[in-house]
């Protein structure tokens, strides 16, 4: 039987009153924040005049004050936390006239996004999906690297190529191009996910091109140069060297945040080349009136999203969108859903209790990949 939050609270308060060593031991004996039955207990220890929890749940009051335990340097906050939620937060510490946002020193769990990382609190029923972990006995694919000399960008770029287990040149494979592909490998376990889903026949063997931009906020911002790079430089390299299935239905672009913008924009700018899109937490910001309020990097995105909403054409036939309900981008993604459906495409939006981070994007990979690329389980009867 696990301790109740009330019992834990009583135990750490008692330990704090006995002395620093006892408190150290009480804190070290548990993981923090401690989640039970839809609630969580956050702990901070240290000199401060005020401690607040700043969470990244859009449209909810962000700051919640901790309570100091009289006569100690222990601060506590008990608050609601949904069972399966992953909530990003930082602690706002005010001390001697200074305020700073810090990661929770007692919580090793971090949620990473393209702009940095935050601490993350997870509800008691959240589990990292086992299909994102390496498993003994599962055949593994390989990631090889090619250098692509780009005349468009005037530089040389490393391109990662995931080749599936049992790759053979006599076979042909569908192609997935992943924006921020090396980040997907590092932060979203993309290779383990592919290996597992292929092993379980949930997706077909496929080739995945991993691209990474040195200047993603410019290149991924609905940038015509990027569309040219993908279609006129990257695709010829891939089609020349690897056995790919022909046809737009066997070509998919994916990306998260600005990477989703780049994916949708490229498919829109080059109609008929990509039949599938996997758009995670797309930064599809627009402003029908006034300023969009998201800073100058969003200017080209907003301009293009406005244009896209006016003339969406048919960017692809099948589109999987995902977005965390704690993201401010959820409103834009919801607004984009009927626009995309109106093109005649088969479109789904998965909304999940998570934020704008790589772990959210990892946890949605199975949903998107198995729908976009149904695997041969349909054909296999052992």
């Amino acid at each position: 039987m696990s301790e109740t939050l009330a019992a834990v609270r009583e135990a750490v308060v008692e330990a704090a009153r006995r002395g620093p060593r006892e408190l150290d031991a009480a804190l070290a004996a548990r993981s923090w924040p401690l989640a039970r039955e839809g609630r969580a207990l956050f702990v901070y220890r240290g000199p401060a005049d005020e401690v607040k929890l700043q969470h990244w749940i859009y449209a909810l009051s962000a700051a919640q004050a901790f309570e100091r335990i009289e006569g100690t340097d222990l601060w506590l906050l008990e608050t609601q936390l949904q069972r399966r939620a992953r909530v990003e937060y930082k602690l706002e510490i005010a001390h001697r006239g200074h305020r700073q946002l810090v990661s929770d020193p007692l919580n090793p769990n971090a949620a990473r996004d393209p702009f940095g990382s935050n601490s993350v609190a997870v509800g008691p029923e959240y589990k990292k999906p086992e299909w994102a972990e390496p498993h003994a006995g599962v055949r593994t694919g390989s990631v090889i690297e090619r250098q692509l000399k780009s005349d468009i960008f005037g530089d040389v770029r490393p391109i990662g190529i995931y080749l599936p287990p049992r790759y053979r040149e006599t076979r042909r494979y569908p192609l997935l191009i992943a924006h921020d592909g090396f980040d997907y490998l590092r932060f979203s376990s993309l290779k383990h996910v592919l290996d597992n889903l292929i092993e379980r026949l949930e997706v077909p063997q496929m080739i995945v091109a991993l691209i990474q931009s040195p200047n993603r906020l410019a290149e991924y911002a609905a940038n015509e140069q990027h569309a040219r790079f993908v279609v006129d430089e990257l695709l010829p390299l891939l089609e020349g060297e690897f056995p790919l299935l022909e046809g737009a239905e066997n070509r998919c672009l994916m990306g998260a945040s600005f990477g989703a913008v780049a994916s949708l924009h490229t498919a829109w700018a080059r109609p008929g080349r990509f039949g599938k899109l996997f758009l995670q937490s797309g930064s599809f910001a627009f402003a029908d009136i006034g300023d969009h309020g998201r800073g100058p990097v969003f200017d080209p995105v907003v301009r293009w999203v406005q244009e896209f909403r006016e003339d969406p054409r048919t960017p692809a036939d099948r589109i999987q969108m995902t977005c965390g309900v704690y993201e401010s981008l959820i409103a834009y993604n919801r607004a984009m859903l009927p626009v995309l459906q109106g093109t005649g495409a088969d479109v789904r939006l998965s909304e999940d209790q998570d934020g704008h981070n790589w772990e959210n994007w990892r946890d949605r990979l199975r949903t998107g990949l198995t729908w976009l690329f149904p695997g041969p389980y349909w054909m296999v009867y052992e």
Partner: protein
Amino acid sequence: MIEPHLAPRRVALLGPQSVTRTVPDVVRAFGLDGCNVATITAGWEERERDDAELDRDLGGCSRNLALFPRAEKVFERDKELRRLMHQRYDRMNEQAAYYRAMLAPLLASLRQIELGLAAGTPHLRAERDNCVRLLQELDAHRLRVVDELDAEVFERLRPFERTEIARHREELRRILDGVGGVLIAGGHVGILVNRLRLFGVMELIRDLPVIAWSGGAMVMTERVVLFHDFPPESRGTHGGGGDPEVHVRGIGLARGVVALPHPKKRLDLADSARVGAFAARFSSAGAVCLGLDAGARLVGRSDQPVGEWEESTGVVQLTEAGAVPWRAN
């Protein structure tokens, strides 16, 4: 491509073998031993030669025809054949997309009608019969289109006249001349049926008895029907499950049956409306839809429909009233 006449012989269709292995018993019951049978495991694809367990069960001296690596070697050397097979694959997929697009609204309608019937509106019976007839026509059309495509491709391909295939066929003939029976495992049914046809294996097998299981049993029937009610992601119109579809014509050694391995795992047997719709759709011309779980066994002669076969054990039949145990007449 329509198979040429297949000589009558004894046939056994078995359930999956991964947990309950019945193949050795049936081999013995057929008067064979492991040293005079050939095995076909092409459905296992790259794992084709991972057949040590099967070979051990058969006494360690079975002969695997190794159709999958043979085909890979042929594709490496005969680029034109590879190109034509890829073209066939692309056209099969293109046609399948149209077939699925037409299936979906019909199956959605059938589902609605079944729910209406279950709720006590008997006048929907005529609508149901009409919907089932349309589905059967669509399935038959799918099969005709695939037959025509195969006939066209194989006519252009003339596989048995090609040097590489002819050489492998000669090797296969020598192996098969020395055995008294053939065992066909499951796996990827599309690959399995393709490799059997590419090398003309059934002609080389002549009238040898055949013991086939799981996907191998599907391929031995007249129609290979793909199905899965619990796919990882929704891909069909029936409550999130996949829409059953006719994939290709089977070899035809087991007539009057649609073989359905892993029914407990792959079919929602508790959904009697869904089971009933499946049975109505695929039970045309007296065919029966039979589920083969581990331990299931059907034994008979290929010149008789499965309904008249001599032995059935552990088989479940999909009927319009739901799933029930089945016994041959």
